[in-house]
Every structure is written in C-alpha cells, then in structure tokens.
C-alpha cells in the first residue's frame, strides 16, 4: 500500500537555525498538508497546499514558516529561525482529492527538537 514518507525521523537543531522537513506524498495525490503535535497535546493544522499554492493556513503558520513543492515528488516545510516552542512532531499528509469526505493519509512524522 502506498505511503507518505517523511525525512528525517528526528531533527535536532539549535534555536535560531533554519530547518527543512521533507515529505514525499503518495504519488497520485494532489492535496498536501502539514500538521504538528506538541508532546502530549492534540494534532494541529498548519497549512494545506494545492496546485503550487497555499489553500489555507492556520494562525500558527506565521512568516517563519513556508512550504514548497520543489519537484514532482517532494513537499517541504521550512522554518526560517526556529524557536524553542517549535519543538514538536510534524506530520505531513496527502489526499487524492479535495472533498471533505476524502481521508488524508499521514506520514510517520518528524520529531523536531530545538535546543
């Protein structure tokens, strides 16, 4: 069964440094998402992306965050200048279509630790 893959599984970065989290969505999927989960808390939406544009973003997704689909397979989340509170598990998800009944398929996540 096709999967969403995320790399790295764990990223440790100094505060203030830039970090790029990478995702390879399922190949025929067109809609892409990032979520984050701070330890012990619920999963929160960050951003959705379709047709090389951001469809929606949350208030968490400020100017320090950006997303990109640099080629036909990768989908990246960049944090320009990391803060301690960015430490979380970041999940990439994709879906084949946009309908609200379409389930999103999640990767196993990247654990981001900011020191």
């Amino acid at each position, binding site marked *: 069964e096709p999967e969403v893959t*995320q790399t790295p599984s764990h990223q440790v970065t100094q505060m203030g440094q830039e970090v790029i989290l990478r995702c390879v969505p399922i190949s025929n999927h067109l809609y892409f998402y990032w979520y984050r989960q701070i330890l012990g808390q*619920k999963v929160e939406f960050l951003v959705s992306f379709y047709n090389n544009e951001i469809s929606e973003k949350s208030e968490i997704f400020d100017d320090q965050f950006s997303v990109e689909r640099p080629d036909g397979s990768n989908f990246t989340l960049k944090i320009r200048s990391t803060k301690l509170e960015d430490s979380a598990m970041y*999940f990439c998800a994709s879906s084949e279509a946009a309908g609200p009944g379409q*389930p999103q398929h999640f990767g196993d996540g990247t654990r981001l630790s900011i020191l």
Partner: protein
Amino acid sequence: AQSVAQPEDQVNVAEGNPLTVKCTYSVSGNPYLFWYVQYPNRGLQFLLKYITGDNLVKGSYGFEAEFNKSQTSFHLKKPSALVSDSALYFCAVRRTTSGTYKYIFGTGTRLKVLA
C-alpha cells in the same frame, strides 16, 4: 467555530470486552467525522468516516462508530477488544463548506487493553 471533544484521556478495558471511545462535536452544518489511530512513533492511520447515510459505519480492524445527530456524538466502538488495539485514538471533524479541508482533531484518548 468547529470543535471536537474527547472527554476521556484514557480508557481501560479488558481483552475480549467491548470498548467505547467517546467523541462529541460542534459544527455548523452537516459534519464529516473521522476516527484515526496513532501507534507509538507512528503517524495517524485512518480508521473510518461518517459522511452521510447509515448512522453506524464500519471501518478497519473491526472498529465501528455510531453517528448520533441529536446527541452530536460519534463514538468509536469494537465488540471485542484486543491487546493490539492499545493506542491513541483521535476523533476529527471537517467542515462541509468550500475552502476548508483541514481536520480539527480532538485531544485524543489513550486506549489500554489489558490481557
């Protein structure tokens, strides 16, 4: 505003007994409801969804959920729990209006099935 509540942080059940994980929602309009499961160090796996039609929906691994519009609930159930069902379960809702495809997740319920 849309919201999802999972009133129990943890549910303990003996192996072989029926289990219920509770979820209530608040949305304007018709709800699209989902259950996901998260195993340790893994991403969220889709279990089942309610879109329309029968109030009892069946999903993966023998799970089912009952949609109750009058009580605004979507409880997850399984007739006979397995130790391997022990995991973190998330209820989620999506809006039906256009332009918003994100999930709004509950805080999660940890299910512990005791041998």
